[in-house]
């Protein structure tokens, strides 16, 4: 029997074949992958995982592909760093950083979801990959498509910064700048996805694409010595990542790889785009879409597709949510870099800033095993910190001047 049973509607439960479908024909609810856990339990063990490849594909039994992986073979298995310095600063004994700044090949967690999406897309017979993106997702789709020899279309808003456009063009996809605002890009991409036989990774392939995020839960559980953390702090854009980390932990329990999962799942947003965290604060079970205005561009989704499910996940896991200002984002980036030597993009600043707040509020306690998810590399968003990291010391080429500046012992 196949390990994937069906696609299932998250709202009405109607089942569909495992094809390129993403919306329930009946109620228009989103679809997700349903697995044969009894079958998977028979073939997946801690030992089988530990003898697997050093990539996310060591968990392939719980990923939505039918054959062997073909695209994105090096994604995943990023370091889980015991952040002793940052932990001491925050008053946490067991703080860990899941460092997807070094994910391969494009230095963000998107390499996980794209590896899964395009492997599945190939299985479904697609020859063209596409996405609508302003940053990390476009980089990852373009890079993977180049390696796989697939055609690639990347749709971007017409006013995107030149550096970000370049980051895509280097892989030679067809980059389409759409005149108009963000909403116009959104609408057109949805329509194109309906018209063309393309693997639009975050539209018609979304049920498979989103499953790749579960590997961030699988890896953490394995790297902690086969236990679930007490707390996780997860940045939220669409909200999908947060819901899939929860799904992943629960799947490991379901197939017997974890005994107990009582993880509190906490969500982090930037105040300039915090529809989900605001709904949580106001005690609402629905969110109000917003127009994003934050330096944390990779989280700037004002009308998040999984916002409702993220709220449900946090409630179910007894976690919390909060949001931070842009200044707190920058402080978070600097704090992580200066304590742990990890340079995160702005989403990482959101996570660290929110972690600080949750510790201060007492939601995360000293002895909790806590994992903060850092999802992208700081080299991609250097403009965010360029004015807040100081300047180099400038001296003439003279030993005397050097010693005048830094003293005999070399300390300034």
């Amino acid at each position, binding site marked *: 029997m196949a390990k994937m049973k069906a696609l299932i509607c998250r709202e009405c439960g109607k089942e569909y074949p495992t094809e390129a479908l993403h919306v329930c024909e009946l109620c228009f609810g989103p679809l997700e992958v349903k697995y044969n856990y009894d079958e998977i339990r028979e073939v997946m063990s801690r030992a089988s995982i530990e003898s697997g490849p050093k990539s996310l594909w060591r968990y392939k039994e719980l990923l939505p592909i039918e054959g062997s992986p073909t695209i994105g073979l090096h994604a995943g298995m990023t370091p889980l760093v015991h952040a002793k310095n940052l932990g001491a600063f925050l008053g946490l004994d067991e703080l860990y950083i899941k460092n997807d700044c070094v994910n391969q090949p494009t230095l963000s967690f998107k390499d996980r979801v794209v590896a899964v999406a395009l492997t599945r897309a190939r299985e479904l017979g697609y020859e063209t990959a596409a996405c*609508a993106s302003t940053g990390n997702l476009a980089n990852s789709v373009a890079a993977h498509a180049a390696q796989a020899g697939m055609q690639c279309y990347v749709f971007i808003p017409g006013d995107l910064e030149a550096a970000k456009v370049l980051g895509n063009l280097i892989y030679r996809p067809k980059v389409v700048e759409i005149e108009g605002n963000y*909403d116009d890009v*959104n609408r057109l991409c*949805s329509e194109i996805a309906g018209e063309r036989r393309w693997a639009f990774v975050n539209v018609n392939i979304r049920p498979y694409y989103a499953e790749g995020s579960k590997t961030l839960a699988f890896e953490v559980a394995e790297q902690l010595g086969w236990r679930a953390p007490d707390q996780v702090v997860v940045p939220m854009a669409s909200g999908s990542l947060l819901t899939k980390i929860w799904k992943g932990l629960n799947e490991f329990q379901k197939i017997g790889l974890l005994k107990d999962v009582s993880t509190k799942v906490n969500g982090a947003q930037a105040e300039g785009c915090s529809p989900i965290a605001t709904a949580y604060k106001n005690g609402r079970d629905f969110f109000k879409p917003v127009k994003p205005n934050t330096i944390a561009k990779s989280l700037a989704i004002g009308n998040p597709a999984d916002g409702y499910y993220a709220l449900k996940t946090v409630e179910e896991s007894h976690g919390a949510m909060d949001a931070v200002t842009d200044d707190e984002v920058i402080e978070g980036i600097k704090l992580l870099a200066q304590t742990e030597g990890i340079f995160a993009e702005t989403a990482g600043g959101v996570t660290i800033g929110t972690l600080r707040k949750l510790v201060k509020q007492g939601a995360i306690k000293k002895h909790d095993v806590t994992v903060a998810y850092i999802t992208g590399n700081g080299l991609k968003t250097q403009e965010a910190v360029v004015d807040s990291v100081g300047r180099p010391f400038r001296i003439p080429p003279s030993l005397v001047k050097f010693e005048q500046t830094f003293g005999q012992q070399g300390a300034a």
Partner: protein
Amino acid sequence: MTKLRFHIRFPEEKIPEPVIYQIGHEYEVVTSIRRADVRETTGWMDVEFSGETEEIERAIAGLREKGVLVDPIELNVVE
């Protein structure tokens, strides 16, 4: 005949108005409501509009003119 799916949202002041009825009268589109949650202060519907593509686009523009927010069924797809 084209069928397109949308997520539409009503701001508080539009809740009492029979917007879906009006759209059916003003444009040659048929509306099928699949899911909805309308409360005192906010409301949304997942709908399918059937008709000629241009007429559906006119209906969408008409909804927006009335102050109703119209998004693809997938919500934000730009990531």
